[in-house]
């Protein structure tokens, strides 16, 4: 277990390093001179003098490696720079928008779990029968519908036609219903299939036969004995697809005008607010690696054999 955590931490450092180089290089390659952009934003008359002064102030006259070193030093002190547009520290902006994205993610996960659990259990209980076919069909559709389009359909139906729920912005809990549904529905179908496969696999294990032979109730066999082993593949796929979950938040936040991290990133791209883009990319990178660390830790909780450091999971 410990070496797993260690490997993840090494990966975290490596990824951060790679990301820092990448974003730094891209920033330097980016079209348009950030100095002129900054001056333009202030709507001042651009003179040679104040251009040179600003260039010096930002350290853009120094050799590239020195610039990188300085930028890195700042980064280590959690200084992600200042937004070109708003003039505020990028970190503050990130922190201000993080809660919305987290709310949305949690909402999406709740929707996903509430749909995929019963669907997966039903499909595994009756393999080859109609609940199984329904879940297969839903999974196909779920994997084929663009999430932004589903969001639009939901807005049309529930916000516009029925007028039950608000379609955009942030406010009370009901503002989060449609976004959470949009994010959760697409995932639900896929995870229901995964759960089905995992359950069918673990239900065929000997220890299930042993538990049944001891006369333990069928629902208990399913929930206590089969479910936990079935979660392993589900969790590992979840770890691998954190990316598509985050991508989903970008789409959903933009679609519903939620002030989250994703919509911030998209806005920053249109405004060429490079420090914000950089901050977003670095921050999400760290989040992905950290979530993967959590996923690794959850294996230990799911299977005590891993916790005890016994490699052979037979």
């Amino acid at each position, binding site marked *: 277990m410990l070496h797993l955590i260690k490997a993840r931490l090494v990966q975290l450092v490596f990824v951060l390093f790679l990301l820092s180089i990448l974003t730094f290089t891209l920033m330097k390659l980016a079209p348009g001179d950030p100095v002129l952009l900054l001056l333009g934003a202030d709507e001042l008359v651009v003179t040679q003098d104040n251009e040179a002064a600003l260039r010096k102030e930002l350290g853009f006259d120094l050799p590239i490696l020195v610039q990188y070193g300085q930028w890195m030093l700042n980064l280590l002190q959690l200084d992600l720079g200042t937004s070109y547009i708003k003039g505020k520290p990028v970190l503050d902006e990130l922190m201000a928008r993080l809660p919305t994205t987290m709310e949305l993610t949690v909402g999406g996960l709740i929707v996903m779990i509430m749909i995929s659990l019963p669907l997966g259990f039903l499909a595994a209980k009756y393999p080859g029968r109609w609940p199984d076919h329904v879940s297969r069909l839903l999974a196909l559709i779920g994997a084929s519908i663009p999430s932004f389009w589903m969001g639009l359909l939901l807005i049309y139906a529930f916000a516009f036609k029925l007028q039950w729920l608000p379609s955009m912005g942030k406010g009370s809990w009901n503002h989060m219903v449609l976004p959470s549904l949009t994010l959760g529905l697409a995932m639900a179908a896929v995870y229901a299939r995964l759960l089905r496969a995992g359950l069918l696999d673990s239900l065929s294990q000997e*220890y299930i036969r042993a538990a049944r032979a*001891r*006369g333990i109730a069928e629902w208990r066999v399913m929930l206590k004995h089969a479910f936990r082993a079935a979660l392993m593949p589900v969790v590992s796929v979840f770890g691998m697809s954190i990316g598509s979950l985050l991508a989903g938040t970008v789409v959903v936040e933009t679609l519903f005008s939620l002030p989250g991290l994703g919509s911030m990133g998209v806005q920053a791209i249109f405004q060429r607010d490079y420090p914000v883009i950089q901050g977003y990319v670095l921050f999400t990178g760290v989040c992905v690696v950290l979530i993967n660390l959590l996923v690794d830790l959850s294996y230990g909780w*799911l299977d*005590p*054999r891993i916790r005890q450091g016994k490699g052979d999971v037979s």
Partner: protein
Amino acid sequence: MTQILSIGAPILELKDLSICLHHGKQHQILVHDLNLMLRPGETLALVGESGSGKSLTANAVLGLLGNSLQISGGQILVCGEDIVPWSDKERRKLRGTGIGLVFQDYQGSFTPFIKIGKQFVETLRSHNSLSVQEAKLQAMNWLGRVGLPAERVFNSYPFQLSGGQRQRAAIAAALMLKPSLLIADEPTTALDVLTSETVLDLLDELQSQTGCAILMISHDLRQVLKRADTIAVMKEGRIVESGAAEVIRTRPTHAYTKMLLKSRPLLTEIHAQLLAEEQALAGTGDRLA
């Protein structure tokens, strides 16, 4: 081994039992017209090579045949009552309290990520209305009876025990519900010879204490010869020969039985002999190894 007098009504009786495999529209009969009878306190060994249908028979008795297999004819009488038409719920009640199971793969006797003690308590509470405390006391008691360090095993995960320990725990889990019939499906195949002898000794001992009948499924005719009262030899889904163990050993009639008997001297016997000598030398040897 002294015969326990077989009195009273049979615990288990199979009458013309047939089991059939459905595969799409085709079906294939895997077990043909099986007849068996088992009385309280008796041990009956069902012997045959893998694929002979002996484990299927055990599963049928337990009501755990799965989706593609079906009982296509005959009766399974438990204490005189035919359980074939029973509902799933009724059969579940029977499993555990009426019929216990100990099986080959000791790895699979317990769910790997739940502590042994928890699984014992769960099993006890599934059949009796007990508090967790009471169930724990009973579980510890039984772990002690099969010669395990109760406290430690209770708090262990299955993978933390050795194969022999796990099989002992499985026997305790099966017998603590006081079933009148214990099905032992190749209980020692996955164990080494020394451990398997001590496990079989333990089964004998517990049988004489509780008086339950044992249906022992094995591929090893020689090993069951001295453990069973009656033996039925199965081949390709049919019983080819059955009778008292003594008769089978001394006067087998069917060619297949003769072949099984003649197969090379088994390590089991050599080791058992060695074990006996060792124990004789050491006086009271620690059988737990």
